[in-house]
């Protein structure tokens, strides 16, 4: 029997290849994701190993609020370095500074990494600890720096050039005196790096006398583990919670696992989109097997008359599925290599030069790719295989024998209804149930969506005829016979059309869901700006970096500027959990920000004492606190204070958990910089002229900050939503591409079945052009059925999810125009999918088409 299977696969080469593409694409996305993230992880691992290779132990500060604190951890005091140096067994110890910084040329143009990678500032390490090598020039002294050679070349810098370096401290002019490279390869994983003399680095980062890391070399004979133990013993009790001592190797491992944790979100997101593509591929596999088995009914009947048992037929079809799955998985792996390299190249083109250490192919990647490909193909082929076993031997003798209906066929509408309803219920549960883990919530919502898709797909065969009739009507009016035949062809085998359309439905449901959701986000951002922002000028850094504290007083001195208010933000531990805290200036905040009060009033702000706090409604309900409650706050600098709630405002995208007086915690922010400075013009001042003056000041003194009007804030919000939207569209494109092959596959198989009909049509005077349009319109009808169902499911998904987010100010909207664009897209998609099948149909040889047997 296996010989028959194999020969069958080869003789049906074309459809086998088309079927395989459906699985290859999904598997390539999954394996490509693994390869990409494994490669990035490995490369960073190498970077950190190189950086820490001669260091026996490191002493670093840890955050007292624990976990992810949002800002950098406050540095170690100089006393810790003295302690370490006096520890027996320490041969050499030095304090280092490392922080994010910004570099500008003297015209205020940013010099640095692009595409999200940071610019990192380091103090020059002692020669024994250095992981960078000087490429040209000399190591810096005084107000000098060296810069990595990639950045040096990218920005066409030259030795002797003066640049401006800005971190938490005062902006400082410095001269470039050399270039460096990292390790043996080049730069630090796409980040721009500059090295400064220690004292200068401390001044620029406002950490005079402090360090971000102490690197230690032990005397010979003392192991890294020993020296770590000895240093730990020296750390006084008062510092125990704020200092971490570990070996250089551990430190490198910690840093790499921090990177891989950071990549985990990307990995999961990409895998989810790969999984969607595989799910869509399963529909195509199911359809192809159903069609090809129907076309082989006589062949199967013949095998049965020759004595093949049902079990043998089942095994034969499943073996076919297994082989297709296996070969597709292997091809998917190969394609994944290409895909990973493509994404890498795209990152590089956008300037994020990720470190590359050659593509990493883990055994896990191979196993997952093969398992996913084979299991999904076999699962999708199982129902058609079962139906194949029900072909009676007599089928061999019948002309045009039909595949017997499954025993469960009459229950299908019931099963479909139950599955679909269950999907909606699970979806609602996922959205509304109180679940603390975002991951769990999203998984439940995803499971609901999958059930909903399956339910709708099972119902679709019943919808094909009415939908095809409705869609075919205008086409028939327009094109007469070709439209009529296309409509009839689309509805003569409703299940086939339904499954083909359902594959596209999934992609378009998700596309329309994100289209709606993005429109809602844009609208809510606009509404929030209109409702809450009173300041005319908002000054902040576009990349979300903090801006120097000196900005606010400098802006206030500009003629024509009235109220100026600075806002700071940080993370702190409040009543036991990490929360966002904001510092506001009560005397000026009301001029630039309108609180949406739940309890309390503006008077609570103006009368705010040093230990008074305002909290958001979500924080209040989450922590079960109200006006009059006290909150225990632990800052990143390990200061403890107790504050009292005097007002509750509605949570917004500008102010969330807890708001304190700016001066209460000013000295305890981890980064000592502001988030936003907002200002208004003096009454009667020329608004535009004042904005020009602020712009000029920022450009010359604080290039890190830029002034934004309310309109620009909205535009920026819109831009970031649109960027995310584009990214999701690109990721969903793979699923939509899979469904494209689904339509091609169905059309090719149907045309094969209708060879004689097409021959007759051609004989009685149908032109090739007409034949092409019959195929194209059928494809368009199928695609638009998919689009309509997709839009319906997408709108349902969006409505449910929006309802769940109504407390966040998200209001359900229907961007009809954008959604209609997707219907138009589906029509074009149908025409594109039909291109090749239509050509094949038009080129059929009439004589062969009408020949006897």
């Amino acid at each position, binding site marked *: 029997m296996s010989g028959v299977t194999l020969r069958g696969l080869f003789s049906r080469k074309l459809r086998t290849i088309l079927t395989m593409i459906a699985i290859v694409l999904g598997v390539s996305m999954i394996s490509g994701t693994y390869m990409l993230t494994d490669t990035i992880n490995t490369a960073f691992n190498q970077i950190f190993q190189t950086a820490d290779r001669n260091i026996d132990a490191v002493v670093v500060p840890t955050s007292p609020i624990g976990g992810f604190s949002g800002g950098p951890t406050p540095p170690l005091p100089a006393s810790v370095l003295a302690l370490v140096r006096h520890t027996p067994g320490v041969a050499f110890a030095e304090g280092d500074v490392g922080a994010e910084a910004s570099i500008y040329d003297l015209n205020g143009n940013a010099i640095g990494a692009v595409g999200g990678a940071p610019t990192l500032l380091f103090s020059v390490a002692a020669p024994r600890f250095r992981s960078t090598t000087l490429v040209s020039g000399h190591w810096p002294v005084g107000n000098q720096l060296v810069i990595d050679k990639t950045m040096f070349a990218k920005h066409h810098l030259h030795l002797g050039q003066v640049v401006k370096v800005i971190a938490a401290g005062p902006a400082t002019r410095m001269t470039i005196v050399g270039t460096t490279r990292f390790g043996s390869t080049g730069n630090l994983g796409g980040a721009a790096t500059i090295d400064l003399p220690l004292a200068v680095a401390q001044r620029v980062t406002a950490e005079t006398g402090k360090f971000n890391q102490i690197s230690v070399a032990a005397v010979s004979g003392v192991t890294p583990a020993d020296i770590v133990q000895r240093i730990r013993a020296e750390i006084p009790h008062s510092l125990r919670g704020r200092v971490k001592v570990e070996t250089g190797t551990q430190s490198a491992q910690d840093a790499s696992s921090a990177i891989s944790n950071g990549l985990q979100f990307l990995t999961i997101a990409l895998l989810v989109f790969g999984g969607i593509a595989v799910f869509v591929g399963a529909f195509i596999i199911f359809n192809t097997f159903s069609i090809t088995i129907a076309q082989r009914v006589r062949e199967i009947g013949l095998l049965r008359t020759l004595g093949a048992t049902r079990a043998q037929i089942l095994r034969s079809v499943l073996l076919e599925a297994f082989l297709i799955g296996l070969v597709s998985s292997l091809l998917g792996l190969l394609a994944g290599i290409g895909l990973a390299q493509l994404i890498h190249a795209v990152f590089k083109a956008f300037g994020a030069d990720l470190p590359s250490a050659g593509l990493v192919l883990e055994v896990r990647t191979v196993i997952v790719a093969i398992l996913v490909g084979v299991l999904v193909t076999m699962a999708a082929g199982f129902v058609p295989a079962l139906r194949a076993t029900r072909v009676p031997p007599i089928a061999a003798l019948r002309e045009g024998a039909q595949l017997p209906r499954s025993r469960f066929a009459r229950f299908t509408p019931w099963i479909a209804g139950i599955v679909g309803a269950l999907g909606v219920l699970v979806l609602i549960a996922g959205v509304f149930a109180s679940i603390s883990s975002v991951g769990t919530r999203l998984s439940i919502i995803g499971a609901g969506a999958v059930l909903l898709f399956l339910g709708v797909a099972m119902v679709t065969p019943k919808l094909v005829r009415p939908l095809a009739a409705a869609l075919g009507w205008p086409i028939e009016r327009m094109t007469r016979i070709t439209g009529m035949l296309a409509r*009839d062809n689309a509805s003569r085998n409703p299940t086939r059309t339904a499954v083909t359309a359902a594959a596209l439905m999934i992609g378009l449901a998700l596309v329309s869901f994100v289209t709606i959701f993005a429109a809602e986000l844009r609208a809510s951002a606009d509404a929030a700006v209109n409702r809450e922002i009173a300041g005319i000028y908002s000054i902040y850094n576009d990349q979300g970096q903090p801006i120097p504290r000196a900005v606010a007083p400098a802006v206030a001195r500009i003629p024509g500027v009235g109220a100026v208010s600075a806002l700071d933000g940080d993370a702190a531990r409040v009543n036991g959990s990490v929360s966002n805290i904001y510092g506001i200036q009560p005397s000026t905040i009301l001029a630039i920000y309108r609180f949406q009060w739940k309890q309390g009033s503006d008077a609570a702000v103006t009368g705010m004492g040093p230990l008074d706090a305002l909290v958001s409604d979500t924080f209040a309900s989450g922590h079960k606190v109200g006006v009059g409650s006290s909150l225990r706050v632990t800052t990143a600098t390990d200061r403890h204070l107790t504050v009292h709630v005097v007002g509750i405002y509605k949570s917004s995208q500008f102010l969330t958990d807890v708001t304190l007086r700016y001066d209460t915690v000013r000295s305890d922010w981890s980064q000592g910089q502001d988030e936003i400075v907002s200002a208004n013009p003096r009454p009667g001042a020329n608004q535009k002229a004042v904005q020009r003056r602020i712009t000029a000041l920022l450009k010359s003194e604080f290039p890190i900050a830029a002034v934004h009007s309310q309109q620009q804030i909205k535009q920026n919000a819109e831009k970031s939503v649109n960027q995310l939207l584009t990214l999701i569209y690109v990721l969903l494109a793979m699923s939509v591409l899979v469904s494209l092959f689904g339509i091609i596959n169905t059309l090719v198989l149907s045309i094969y079945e209708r060879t*004689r009909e097409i021959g007759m*049509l051609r*004989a*009685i*005077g149908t032109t090739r052009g007409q034949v092409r349009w019959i195929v194209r319109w059928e494809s368009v009808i199928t695609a638009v059925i998919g689009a309509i169902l997709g839009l319906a499911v997408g709108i349902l998904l969006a409505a449910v999810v929006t309802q769940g987010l109504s407390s966040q100010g998200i209001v359900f909207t229907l961007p009809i125009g954008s959604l209609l664009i997707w219907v138009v897209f589906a029509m074009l998609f149908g025409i594109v999918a039909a291109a090749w099948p239509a050509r094949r149909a038009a080129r059929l040889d009439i*004589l062969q088409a*009408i020949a006897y047997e």
Partner: protein
Amino acid sequence: MLEAPDTTVTSARPVVAAEHLTRLYGEGQAQVAALRDVEVAFQPGTFSAVMGPSGSGKSTLMHLLAGLDRPTSGTVTIDGVELNGLNDKKLTLLRRQKVGFVFQFFNLLPMLTAEENITLPLRIAGERVDEASLRQLLEAVGLADRKEHRPAELSGGQQQRVAIARALITRPAVIFADEPTGNLDSQSSREVLDMLRRAVDDLGQTIVMVTHDAQAAAVADRIVFLEDGRIVRDEGHLTADQILDVMKVLR
């Protein structure tokens, strides 16, 4: 009954004519001549049968005469138009306007009703369907009460009658019937042949029928016998028995 087509202009010349028609298949050693230098012409309003043993070239001849295939050499003229030199599009439009087909396997579209199948050629041509003549045609083929049925709901004979009506509806210059009774029982065969005969007698339709069946050929006015790609006999009306005698000699 339907009006007879206006044959006054074309009465002087044949509807379909072939000159020096040769069709070779394959190349070199493996080359086979399906048709060798055939000369034949069919006059308007005649019912001709083409007979011959399997492989005699009768199907090839029909395909060439109908413009479905192109000769290796020689010419075919349909209603005064020479087919050589017509591109696929022009040839298709010529078939649409001047040629009708009846096939052995009926070749109806399963999703269309009988009426829709009959009017298909008009719709393909983008022409309006004249309701009155459609009704007459349905009456003539005896399917007035079956016009809403789909092919699967019709017997073989009924399906073939739909196919004949489909061929007649455009009033083509010539109808080619390819083994029209090959898939029918004898009762249905008689009905179908009767219908073709009436189309010739009542409407002046020209029909060229390829067949194996002596009973079928006996309905024709003229019988052309092929053997090894050549016309070996060209007779007027013969009875079934006479035809069988000729065929015995040919085999």
